[in-house]
């Protein structure tokens, strides 16, 4: 039986008069790949931000690896982000004046100490061994996203959070990133991914559907789907 890595219970987030999340409850087992789907404004990004320690809930709890993210102060959230989670964003979000390897090492720097050799291996693993010293402007969108994936994994996080990771990529690069995520899943990484694309959603173990901040359904995806 797999260990429970994420436990979300009655999670609510209110922005003024808007309830971005309204009593969402679900669990994620370690090693699972979860696709989070729903229309725009359904609360997917808010949920992923709370689980990533980028935002705090109004009520409810979000326990990741045994700690309730809602209870952290600012310093606690900072440590949590450095140690427990890895992010892949739709917009890549690389530091424009740092090279590919330096962008990866930046995550190491904020976590503990830097190891250039390890950062190089991480980039080689995503097929960017020949792009180490290129700055983001010299990389294609797909290459930038692969740098972001390498950066998200460099500190061996418990949970990989991906918000529309292929949303800004062409078909070829989308396939490269999806293959990469699939490999990571096979290796045992726990992935929570927001996507609008049903075909990508079908690659996950389960799909969580959100609408208007509420959990609509959790669908277990079988191999034949």
């Amino acid at each position, binding site marked *: 039986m797999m260990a429970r890595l994420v436990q979300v219970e009655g999670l609510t987030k209110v922005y003024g008069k808007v309830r971005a999340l309204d009593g969402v409850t679900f669990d994620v087992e370690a090693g699972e790949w979860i696709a989070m789907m729903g229309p725009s404004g359904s609360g997917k*990004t808010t949920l992923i*931000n709370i689980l*990533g320690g*980028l*935002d705090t809930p109004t009520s409810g709890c979000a326990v990741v690896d045994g700690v309730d993210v809602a209870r952290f102060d600012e*310093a606690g959230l*900072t*440590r*949590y*982000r*450095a*140690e427990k989670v890895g*992010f892949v*964003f739709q*917009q890549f*979000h690389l*530091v*424009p*004046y*740092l*090279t590919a390897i*330096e962008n990866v*090492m*930046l*995550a*190491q*720097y*904020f*976590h503990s100490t*830097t190891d250039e050799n390890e950062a190089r291996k991480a980039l080689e693993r995503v097929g960017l061994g020949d792009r180490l010293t290129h700055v983001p402007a010299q990389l294609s969108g797909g290459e930038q996203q692969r740098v972001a994936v390498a*950066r998200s994994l460099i*500190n061996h996080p418990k949970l990989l959070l991906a918000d529309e990771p292929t949303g800004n990529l062409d078909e070829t690069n989308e396939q490269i990133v999806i293959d990469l995520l699939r490999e990571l899943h096979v290796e045992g990484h726990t992935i929570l991914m927001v996507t609008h694309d049903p075909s990508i959603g079908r690659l996950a173990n389960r799909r969580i559907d959100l609408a208007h901040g509420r959990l609509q359904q959790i669908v277990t995806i079988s191999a034949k789907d």
Partner: protein
Amino acid sequence: MFGRLLWQLLRGNRGRLAVALVAIVGGGAVISAMFNMEIDVRKKLTQEFRSLGANVVLSGHGAGDQALMRESATEGVVERLQPQGTIASPFLYVVARTAANQPVVLAGTWLDRAPAITPWWQIQGEAILARDDISHCLVGKNVARQFALTPGSDLELRYADKVSHFSVSGIITAGDDEDDQVFANLAVVQNLSGLTDRIAMIQLRVTGSPQAIQSFASQLKIALPDAEARPIRQISETEGSLLARIQLLMITMALLILMLTGLCVFATMAALAMERRADVGLMKALGGSIGRIVRLFLAEVAVLGAVGGVLGYTCGAALTLWAGKRVFGVMISPRLEVLPLTIALMVGVALAGALPLRLLGKVKPAVILRGE
């Protein structure tokens, strides 16, 4: 990694940082030049003031011959009490007559000391540089005009039954009473007038503060009760007050320049802080604490200040040499001890100007990553 990040930050934002660097270099140049001059200015100004001539006069009480002092005794006391660097010159005045029986004031002094005691004299012809020169005299321009004298002319002067023959060495233009007098070495005048070992006054060029000059004058009064020692206040007090004013002006200007430099850095950093919101949001999302992130940016600013300080010092050295020549007409050497002071001030100003970076502490990564 810190150094690597720092280097990339400086490289990546070199355009905007160059603006701040120019301001820091400009500020550093003026500040270091002012410090260089401030250190040297007292010395240079004292030299300049010294060129104004005597600042203490020692004369006898009473009128006529009673007012005359004994040269040997008076000089002995003066030499004993005078501060180091003092230049003294005795004077004796008599009214002599020319060959045409015209009266003329004949002043006896140590003409070799005239350049120090009466530096404002403009001499057409030759100055008299030897105290034992008994055959030459200097004549004021009015006397020269009255008696049609030019350098090289002969001048006969009588006093009672004695006669002295002089060759005019130079014509003095002083803009004062000296223009109406004839000057010869003291011994000649004493001999002609029969006032051996007598002098009317001693003019002294004393170095030091107005207080030191006043103190010296007081000591002279005690030691020579029959004489009167007077500081020429206009000069000695002007010296002190002018030095204080120049110092105040320099400090005020230095503060103003530091403030302007800080404002320029402030404006640049405010713009940079806005531009870096995305980077900071991302760094926070990656687990960077705001303290660590801001330290990185502050280090960048400190490097900027230090580089600006060094470059500013270099430019300031050139400015010092130029201003020394133009303003004081002397060589003012840049001082090495000004370098660390300039660097420290420029780093301080740059860090103070980096205050807008505090705004980065309020950056919410979730908001930034949403692209807002």
